[in-house]
Structure formats: C-alpha cells, structure tokens
C-alpha cells in the first residue's frame, strides 16, 4: 500500500514538476579543459650549442620575441615561417606584451624590463645563459607562481627556438 502510494506520488511529481534542463544549451566543457591542461613544471638543461652569436639565430629569436603570430605583416628571417608544417598559423612569443626591450613597440610591464640584459644581468653575474633558457622553457622552476608564459613544456616552441630567443636576449645590443 505504502509503496504504491509512493510510486503514484513520484509519478505525479515527475508528470507535473517542470524540468527545463533539456531545453537549454549546457554543453560539457570538462573534456576540452582536461585536454588543454598544463603539465607539471619541468627542469631542462640547455643544449651545449644553445647560445649562438650567429646573426641569423639572433634575428629569429628577435622575431619570435617581438611578434604575436603569423598574422604579422613583417617577413620572418631565414629559418622561420609564419605557418606550421600543417599549414596552420604559427604562434610567436609575443614577449613584448609583458617585457620592454631594445626597439620594442607597445611593450607591457608585467615582466621585468630586459633592456641591456647582457650588461645588467649576465656580465654582472646576476644571471647566466642556463637561467635565461630555463626561464623561457618553464618559468615555474625558478618561480612556482610566475605570471610568465610557459614555452617548452607546452610545446609552443622547440629547444632550438628557445635557444634562438635566449641568444637574442643575451646578445649585445
């Protein structure tokens, strides 16, 4: 008796209670986020031939530093393309969004000013090439709460590209 009363009550409820959830868009985003997550902080040692004085390497590093992506009007230097191998638009560093440096246009100030980096930071002994490499590759090793972009762990750039950028930063300007 009791159960049948319950059952009919429940039935009554489900017949009359409204449920709008099926009428609205409420897509699942958790899988998109899961696939997009940043991996754990990764320490890496720069390759032996990393820092280069080759003007072409430095030019590539400068280009990556100063540009956002393949939509730029500027022509990339030799060895760098505006598109990836699959034809998609290449993303560059957009480092000047946060850092001022020689020749920067519209630089931001979220990160430290990198003017005269060689003189002020390297020659002074405050920093070395490996520090710069690691900072660009994965800044969390030195500063777990960094606001800086992560560039090697995310796969945005490969080792050689990080080396080109580092070569540009530590080059005399």
């Amino acid at each position, binding site marked *: 008796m009791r159960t049948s009363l319950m059952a009919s009550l429940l039935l009554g409820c489900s017949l009359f209670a*409204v*449920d*709008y*959830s099926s*009428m*609205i*868009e*409420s*897509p*699942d*985003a*958790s899988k*998109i*986020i899961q*696939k*997009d*997550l*940043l991996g754990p902080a990764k320490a890496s040692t720069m390759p032996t031939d990393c820092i280069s004085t080759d003007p072409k390497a430095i030019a590539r590093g400068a280009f990556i530093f100063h540009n956002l992506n393949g939509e730029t009007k500027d022509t990339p230097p030799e060895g760098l393309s505006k598109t990836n191998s699959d034809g998609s638009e290449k*993303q560059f560093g*957009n480092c*000047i*969004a*946060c850092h001022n440096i020689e020749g920067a*246009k*519209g*630089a*931001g*100030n*979220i990160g430290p000013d990198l003017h005269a980096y060689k003189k002020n930071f390297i020659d002074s002994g405050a920093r070395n090439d490996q520090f710069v490499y690691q900072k660009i590759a994965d800044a969390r090793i030195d500063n777990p709460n960094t*606001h800086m*972009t*992560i*560039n090697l*762990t*995310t*796969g*945005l750039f490969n080792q050689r590209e990080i080396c080109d950028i580092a070569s540009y930063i530590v080059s005399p300007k």
Partner: protein
Amino acid sequence: MKSILKITLGVALFASLSYSSEQFAMSDADRAMYADLLDANPADMMVQDGKELLSKYGGGDAGLAKFLHVSEEKLPAFIAGFPRYLPDFKKVVGLGQVMQALMVTNGNKAFALKDPKMFNMVAYTKSLANDEKINIDVNANQQMKDAYALGEKTFNTQRGGRGLSCLSCHSADVIGSVLRTQPLPDLGVNNSGGTWPAYRMTKSSLSTMQHRFQGCMNNALQAVIPLGSAEMVGLEVYVTNKAKGKAIAIPGLKR
C-alpha cells in the same frame, strides 16, 4: 548616472594619458569616439531590439516574471542575483539559458546562446536590473557553492599553448600593469559583473560576459570552452561575485 560614468572615465583616461602616448593603443581619435559613444551607446539600440524579441518570443517582462515565479515588481532585484540556481532547471543558469527555456515554453525555437539576437535579449533582460545592486549569493545553496568553486577552479587553471590561467593576468599583484598597451583591469573594482553585456568599441558589437571570457581564452591560446557549460556559468558566478554590491548599468561600454 551617466555623469558619474563620465567622471570615472575622465579620471581613467587622464591616468592613462600620463603614460607615454605610444604605450597605448587608444589614439586621440579613439578617445574622442569613446566620449561620443558615452552619450549615445550604440548598444542602446540593441537593448531595444532585445526588448522587442523578449515580448515577441517570451511574453515580455510579465511573461518573464511569471516564468521565474516572481512579481514584476521584484523582477529587477531577482535579475540582479544571476547567475542563480533555479529548481526548474535543476542547475545554476545564466540569463541566456533562462531565455532559451522561456522561448521554448512559449512555443518558439530557442536562439543559440551565441546568436547576436540572444545577446540583445540578455542585455535587455539584465538592463531591467539597472541601478539595482548585484546581489548574487554564492552561499545560497550547495549548487551555488559548487558553481562558485568550479568558477574559481576554472579561473585558476593554467592551460593552453602558453600555460596561462585567467589568474595570470587578473590577480591582484598584476592589476594595473600593462599588457601590450592594455592596462590589466581589476574585475571587481571595474564592476565587470554589473557592466556586461557591453558594447565593445574595438569589435563594434554587443557582447555578453561569457563571450568576453571566450575572447580572453582565445587571446591566451587556451582552448575556448562553450557558452552555457557549467565551467562558463561558474566563471560568470565567480567574476560577478567580485563586484557584489555594485550597481548594474547595462549596456556597458568597453574598449
């Protein structure tokens, strides 16, 4: 109201002028346009369109009030508490989702959440709460607590091609710094919760807060998550709560 807005803007513009001019993307022409638009926000027309759409597809203000089980008199204060948990939906929802169910129960096909007509309707509906104070209650029930927690988690999650989170650019210690000519806004002090939907000058269109989130995700190379997802609604809860107690002023006007 408008004059207060003008004064605040004046102060903000003056402050930004004190930086070297080439630091800022907003040219003098932009500034002049901004001042003009303040007197006649182009989105006023879009809000008006939203009013017509609501009356055509959802029975107008009265139809909406009935649908939400509140009196027309209490409707503004109720809207000032969105996103909220609504038992009829069995989840925390934003105004766009309310519009969708309202349209369907009125025998219409719902606009997609990303439809500009939907943006207009949401803008009109939220404008009903103009001058009301944001009264979102993130502790109202377990569902709101969960939505807030999911929003906070989503805000703090580092992801995408550059490993950034929303917090990377919107945490207290970087607010006011400049990201490529744009000062990083304080989402609470700036009253983001009370000023979206807003007209975006640089896009010449009306945009909702969730759509604005998608813009930041895109810029930061994060995978863009869909409007109306629990994470998006959670983000809206989390960001809106930062401006709790501030007055709603729709449509907002943004760069």
